[in-house]
């Protein structure tokens, strides 16, 4: 379904073998390899140790690397995120798991006021190599407090890097990049993707932060998306292709920094663009993209930048609402179509 065409592989591909694995397994593999490679990497979070994580991402890591490297924490997000901040300033590279992005709201201070700001306000005396791993997104039957997509909040905050992988390959390659980054990274997984399977080139496959992936080339309209919306948009593009409409689909992958050059190049070529994400539309990440594109590609635009996001309501529980809450293949098709009219 998904055509991953990565532009860069910075690692040595000598021993690179391609394996089929799930998104969760790819993350697990990346964690294991980084724990192996660098003794300063530690993993912390609720149920990540003995149990292996509620989504299985940290499975077997504690058994392999011991409880000093893979730490089970109490339900104390402020406590253990702050602990990661302190540890990072003293030479460790913590990878912390916040089980649902919704729970970042109890510990936002440590992400926004501390991790993002301390390197700057100390005049660069400290660096902050932390990965805040979390997962977001709505699924049938998730309710208002377990379903949000908060990338717009994080992408607004200077000092943070914000990544959102869509495939097992990227889950692997981007997590490695995040762990090796000296900046704090908010690493947004998606609950609907953990079980998806795809090819992963192991060993030194790294996806540099700030690099998008054009997952489908096209000439009529550009679709900008990320995370679990990528397959939805790709299937919309497939459908439109049958009608002769050629959609270029860019998986942004890195929301901060944004791969501005790739976005602008595509938009200037097609003159039409729609942003599709699962975060709420009002003030969502699409707003930033629209603001940026209309500013830097004004003369190339044949139509306004289209924005699709979740309805501006808390996620309602009953699955009857799912198709009006989130963009769907059909609604994406009609948005892409209508921007061309």
């Amino acid at each position, binding site marked *: 379904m998904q055509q991953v065409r990565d532009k860069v592989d910075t690692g040595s591909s000598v021993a690179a073998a391609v394996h089929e694995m799930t998104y969760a397994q790819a993350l697990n593999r990346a964690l294991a390899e980084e724990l192996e490679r660098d003794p300063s990497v530690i993993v912390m979070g*609720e*149920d990540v140790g*003995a*149990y292996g994580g*509620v989504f299985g991402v940290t499975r077997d890591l504690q058994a392999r690397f011991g409880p000093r490297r893979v730490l*089970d*924490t*109490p*339900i*104390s*997000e*402020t*406590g253990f995120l702050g602990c990661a901040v302190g540890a990072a300033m003293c030479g460790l590279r913590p990878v912390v798991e916040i089980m649902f992005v*919704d*729970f970042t*709201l*109890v510990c936002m201070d440590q992400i926004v006021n501390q991790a993002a700001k301390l390197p700057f306000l100390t005049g660069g005396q400290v660096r902050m190599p932390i990965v805040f791993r979390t997962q977001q997104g709505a*699924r*049938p*039957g*998730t*309710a*208002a*407090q*377990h379903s949000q997509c908060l990338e717009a909040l994080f992408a607004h905050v200077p000092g943070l890097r914000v990544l959102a992988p869509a495939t097992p390959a990227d889950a692997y390659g981007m997590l490695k990049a995040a762990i090796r980054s000296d900046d704090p990274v908010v690493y947004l997984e998606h609950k609907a993707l953990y079980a998806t399977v795809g090819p992963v080139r192991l060993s030194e496959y790294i996806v540099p932060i700030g690099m998008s992936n054009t997952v489908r080339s096209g000439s009529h309209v550009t679709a900008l998306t990320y995370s679990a919306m990528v397959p939805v948009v790709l299937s919309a593009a497939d459908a439109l292709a049958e009608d002769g409409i050629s959609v270029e689909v860019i998986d942004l992958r890195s929301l901060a920094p944004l791969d501005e050059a790739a976005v602008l190049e595509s938009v200037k070529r097609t003159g039409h663009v729609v942003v599709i994400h699962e975060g709420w539309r009002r003030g969502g990440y699409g707003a930033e993209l629209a603001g940026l594109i209309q500013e830097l590609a004004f003369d190339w635009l044949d139509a306004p930048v289209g924005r699709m996001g979740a*309805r501006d*309501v*808390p996620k*309602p*529980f*009953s*699955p*009857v*609402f799912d*198709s*009006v*809450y989130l963009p769907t293949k059909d609604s994406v098709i009609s948005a892409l179509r209508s921007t061309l009219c």
Partner: protein
Amino acid sequence: MTATWPADRLVGLYCQMYLVRRFEERCLELSRKGLIPGSIHLCIGQEAAAVGAASALRSDDLTVATYRGHGHVLARGIDPRAAFAEVLGRQTGLCKGRGGSMHLTDMSHGVLPPNSIVGAGLPIATGAALAQLHKGADRVVLCSFGEGTLNQGGAHEALNLAAIWSLPVIFLCENNQYSEMTPAYQMIKGDSFATRVAAYGMPTTKVDGMNVQAVAEAVAQAVTRARNGEGPSYVEADTYRFLGHYQGDPGTSYRPVDEINYWRARDPLLLLAAQLSAEAGMDMRLKAEEESIEVALDTAQQAALDDPLPLRDDVWEGLYAAG
């Protein structure tokens, strides 16, 4: 605990526990059939805590529960059909299908929104209590949560607020020995959650959470204190969830079989039935009660299954106040 309560009273509690148990077993079945979307967090094994506590409340008192709140909510006397309808995402559900299993709310029965953010309910309960004081009402607030919640900072802030403002809240900690898959006592030093709470200056009690009368009595004492303006109390009920953290977790990989068996032998329904069965004719009476609950639940469940889904276009409903 005082002397054993009269059989009639205990039968009433038994029936409520049975109702909760069977409501949840039915939910599990519906979930397995794919009819309930999303996660459900069952309190099977912990019914005595919910039912015992609720029995100590007046009908106009308030309850703030959690995602594991079916028991607390049902024990307040809400309509099981509306509860089924909510977990099934129907328009007739308690929250019109907007909330689901984790948020069964019924303001008309004193049931404030249960919370699925660990710890968030404690501050909210203090506010509900503050409002009662403010109105000169003598209603009290029962706030239930798990032991792992006492590792969440906001819970501490709430305990302190309740203490310094002498608020009519009963903090009921259902210590089911685990927070998700993590053993409770691995996450604290020592063996007492109550010491932490006592440090805020409120009385704490520990009770056998498998004994519904014990819970009811401990909570009743706390309710009396609260109603008399003497402030908050903490009651910790030692208990166990028989199943996993949620329906997708068998609950067996991280808990020793011996432990599970030990607690299952202390099933609050079995214990009470055994105690009651000393009385002549009791077995038959309980059987009859169970059957009538079963029938009521059958009806409620079927009605809920037949109930309509919300209308998609009403997705905005409830977001903002009218006007």
